[in-house]
């Protein structure tokens, strides 16, 4: 049976610029986000949050709040099981409501459920908390310099959450053999996701002692698992439903205080409870981009080839672990996937501070090193007299090989991406030749298509799908994947429709409900299209096999002669001989009984055999190249990008419209990070916890974006597809920095590139000093002795497409 040919022309649905299946609901206001749920008798909850960045809790008195008319329940951490939790098994350091200590402004200490939001808020104001202030540690330097003030008792040293050191091959020797060695220091300020939707959760702990939670979460499965632990309730009695998410970008990947408090309040007051965060609370909830200080030492041959790299990163983690251990490894993992780095050493440390915890934001841990590497490459190109595009071209990773740190790379479209943006932007004509104040910059990147390992160790599928067909001819897809606007529901519909030879409109998708849908790990690491998509294809192919068998029997042919296309199942060699899809389903159900087929996906097991080898592996990697053209106002220091060209190796564009949308959104978000977005603090307090003051680009600051899609048809991807949602963000930020240098000769080695930094650089330039603005010092810190691992650089990729559950 075959509905799938080799070439593009064989596809019926794949490759078409179709609207998303939920587009109509979204343009009519019909989509129900978590805060749009209004249940009968529903109470409204509010959290009381710490006003201090670091303090011991002496006591909490809730009596006055309880006495307020209209209040149904008031809880503190003592009303919850005394168990700490965290998204990663190695960092169980969070409490929904802090009991003994608060570690940041915004830590929740109590929660109220009341008849309405206003009453709930008034009740929180009546709760009396006695704090004993502790010294706040607000920066990496401060946290390392004051070991006597410990934010947590665990970790790899006082206020050091995680310290890692890995060496793949003899880096000293490689640097010694280089013609040119560069050492550079960079800083990437933290920033936040700023989803348009404020997080919301509705919990209903019913009289049957079963709990249902509707939440704006990107990971209903992990929330499901962790709620059982946090609330000490059997997991089968909990149902988590991810409502359509109004923007995630990584900010809705952890279990949060408001979700847990809503559940417990509902249990106590016997009503559904809704908690919606205010915008200010969203800034505290955070889990966004880590501020990262970086030192990078790279050896180059005269022809521009990299001989080896030594990379150090210090991450400002904030008050809790969150995904931080993974973030730390990610700052070191993908340097080798983007370019050829034959030997490589990585040292990284994540430090606790009294700020909202950082975690995964679009690109998770990789935009910061990307910025450092790409800016350094431009400096090296200048030093070697090479075109920045050429130095990158000379360091392309060979397809189907392993990297120094044992990552398996499959298809590599980066060369074509570079050529395409160079061509489209007029790079050769413009670079170094635009009038002063106008510049052009280039940078590249690689990114995972799905994390190769789960957050908790297991041998089960990372994604599961059930496709069922009923005698009406209707097809339903059940999958735990969570649509956060990227279109994952639509992709499932397209792929199932493609395999079954029907239209996406004929497919209904039911997603992200732990009672009804097989587990998918969640919308993170750009994993859903590849993992849920591959599982969906498998499920649909199995279903098609059953139906085709019945059709073949009726037509008196072999099942292998039957194809599914254009809403029919028919004999490929004799297309008139066939039946409409609905009739085929009836034949299938008559032969097999109920038609429902599962599909499972787990990535190939390729993690390097060393500690830390679990972060970085992916079935395949996307590649992007980006050129930014920008104007720099020498008087004000304002940088205005005027045009952006991006070429993205998507493997295959399952729907070019959706891919473009992901690329454009990535470029926009990258520009915001490059030029204005920053999560900064003063005297222990968030400086700008509002949408007005936290600057993000509007229509006026977002330039025209020219997207070029490069298809490499990766054997690991569903019909060859790779990711699009994160990779294209990465090169934008260094491309802006490189454009600023091209425009005015100022190197801003610090993100965001705000006007004051540009002006400072221009001042230095006028004084005849090196026109560089960026970090001058590195923290005093000793990394652990490196774990020595042999470099796997250049070894052929093994076991491509050999993975669990594949047959």
């Amino acid at each position: 049976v075959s509905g799938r040919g080799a070439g593009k022309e064989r596809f019926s649905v794949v490759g078409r610029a179709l609207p998303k299946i939920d587009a109509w609901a979204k343009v009519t206001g019909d989509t129900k986000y978590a805060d749009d749920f209004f249940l009968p008798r529903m109470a409204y909850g509010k959290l009381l949050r710490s006003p201090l960045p670091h303090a011991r809790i002496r006591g909490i008195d809730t009596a006055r709040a309880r006495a307020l008319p209209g209040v149904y329940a008031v809880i503190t951490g003592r009303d919850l099981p005394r168990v700490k939790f965290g998204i990663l098994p190695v960092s169980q350091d969070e409490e929904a409501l802090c009991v003994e200590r608060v570690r940041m402004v915004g830590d929740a200490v109590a929660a109220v459920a009341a008849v309405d939001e206003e009453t709930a808020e008034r009740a929180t104001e009546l709760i009396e908390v006695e704090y004993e202030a502790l010294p706040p540690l607000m920066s990496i330097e401060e946290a390392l310099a004051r070991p006597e003030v410990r934010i947590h008792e665990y970790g790899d040293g006082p206020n050091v959450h995680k310290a890692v050191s890995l060496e793949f091959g003899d880096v000293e020797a490689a640097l010694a053999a280089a013609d040119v060695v560069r050492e550079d220091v960079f800083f990437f300020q933290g920033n936040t996701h700023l989803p348009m939707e404020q997080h919301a959760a509705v919990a209903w702990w019913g009289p049957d002692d079963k709990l249902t939670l509707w939440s704006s979460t990107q990971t209903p499965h992990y929330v499901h698992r962790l709620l059982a632990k946090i609330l000490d309730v059997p997991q089968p009695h909990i149902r988590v439903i991810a409502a359509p998410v109004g923007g995630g970008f990584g900010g809705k990947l952890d279990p949060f205080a408001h979700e847990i408090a809503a559940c417990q309040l509902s249990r106590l007051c016997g009503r559904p409870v809704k908690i919606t965060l205010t915008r200010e609370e969203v800034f505290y909830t955070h889990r966004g981009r880590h501020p990262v200080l970086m030192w990078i030492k790279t050896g180059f041959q005269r022809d521009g080839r990299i001989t080896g790299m030594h990379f150090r990163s210090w991450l400002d983690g904030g008050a809790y672990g969150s995904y931080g251990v993974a973030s730390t490894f990610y700052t070191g993992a993908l340097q080798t996937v983007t370019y050829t780095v034959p030997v490589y050493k990585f040292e990284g440390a994540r430090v606790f501070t009294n700020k909202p915890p950082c975690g995964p934001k679009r690109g998770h841990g990789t935009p910061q090193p990307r910025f450092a590497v790409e800016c350094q490459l431009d400096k090296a190109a200048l030093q070697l007299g090479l075109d920045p595009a050429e130095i990158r071209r000379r360091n392309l990773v060979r397809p189907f090989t392993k990297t120094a740190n044992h990552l398996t790379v499959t298809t590599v479209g980066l060369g074509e991406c570079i050529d395409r943006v160079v061509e489209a932007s007029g790079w050769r004509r413009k670079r170094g030749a635009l009038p002063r104040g106008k510049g052009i910059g280039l940078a590249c990147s690689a990114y995972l298509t799905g994390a190769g390992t789960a957050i908790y160790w297991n041998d089960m599928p990372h994604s599961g799908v059930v496709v069922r067909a009923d005698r009406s001819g209707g097809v339903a897809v059940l999958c735990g994947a969570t649509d956060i606007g990227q279109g994952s529901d639509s992709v499932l519909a397209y792929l199932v429709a493609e395999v079954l030879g029907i239209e996406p409109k004929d497919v209904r998708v039911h997603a992200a409900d732990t009672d009804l849908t097989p587990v998918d790990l969640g919308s993170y690491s750009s994993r859903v299209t590849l993992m849920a998509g591959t599982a969906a294809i498998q499920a649909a192919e199995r279903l098609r096999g059953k139906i085709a068998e019945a059709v073949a029997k009726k037509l008196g042919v072999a099942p292998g002669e039957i194809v599914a296309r254009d809403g029919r199942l028919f004999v490929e060699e004799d297309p008139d001989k066939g039946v409409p899809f609905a009739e085929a389903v009836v034949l299938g159900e008559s032969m097999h009984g109920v038609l429902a087929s599962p599909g499972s996906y787990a990535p190939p097991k390729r993690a390097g055999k060393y500690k830390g080898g679990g972060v970085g592996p992916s079935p395949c990697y996307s590649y992007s190249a980006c050129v930014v053209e920008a104007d720099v106002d020498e008087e004000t220091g304002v940088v205005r990008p005027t045009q952006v060209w991006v070429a993205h190796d998507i493997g295959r564009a399952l729907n070019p419209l959706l891919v473009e949308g992901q690329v454009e959104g990535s470029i926009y978000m990258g520009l915001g990070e490059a030029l204005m977005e920053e999560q900064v603090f003063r005297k222990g307090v968030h400086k700008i916890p509002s949408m007005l003051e936290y600057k993000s680009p509007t229509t006026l600051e977002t330039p025209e974006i020219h997207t070029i899609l490069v298809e490499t048809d990766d054997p690991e991807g569903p019909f060859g597809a790779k990711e699009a949602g994160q990779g294209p963000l990465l090169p934008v930020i260094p491309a802006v920095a490189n454009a600023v240098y091209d425009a005015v000769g100022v190197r801003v080695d610090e993100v965001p590139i705000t006007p004051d930094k540009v002006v400072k650089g221009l001042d230095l330039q006028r004084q005849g000093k090196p026109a560089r603005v960026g970090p001058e010092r590195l923290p005093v810190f000793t990394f652990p002795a490196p774990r020595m691992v042999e470099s796997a650089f250049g070894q052929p990729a093994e076991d491509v497409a050999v993975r669990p559950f594949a047959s």
Partner: protein
Amino acid sequence: VKTLVTLTVNDEEREAYVPVHKTLLEVLREDLGLTGTKHGCELGECGACTVLLDGEPVLACLVLPIECQGRRITTVEGMAGGGRLHPLQTAFAELGAAQCGYCTPGVLLTAQSLLARSGAPTREEIREALAGTLCRCTGYTKILDAVELAALRMSGRGASAARQGAER
């Protein structure tokens, strides 16, 4: 103190008995069940709650219902008429201008007001008009494209543009 307000929402007369300080945003969502209007900040900063008041965009989080009595309020639920979507809604759906969709109602209504004023706005004029409605997903590109496509179709020059639009 509660008061009875009478509002004309999407050409229907609606009544609500609400505290005088409750915002139009809250009344629309909580009392009238019109949850298509979204909130992103409740401080007048993000544009997500934009509705039309006598055809002009206003931020529902900064408007009190008592100010709106006797005036026409249009929410996203009122954009489609007689079972037909507004051309902006169709264009937004076809071109992928709504990703997470959370800013979409506010953007659509702001664009509707623009197209009512100016039949064939330039891309720069569209940028100006939409500068107050933040979107974190799309990079605005497909939003601008969709407003242009809708304008083209509404001007009557859009017969071929309709066919050229993405497949439905």
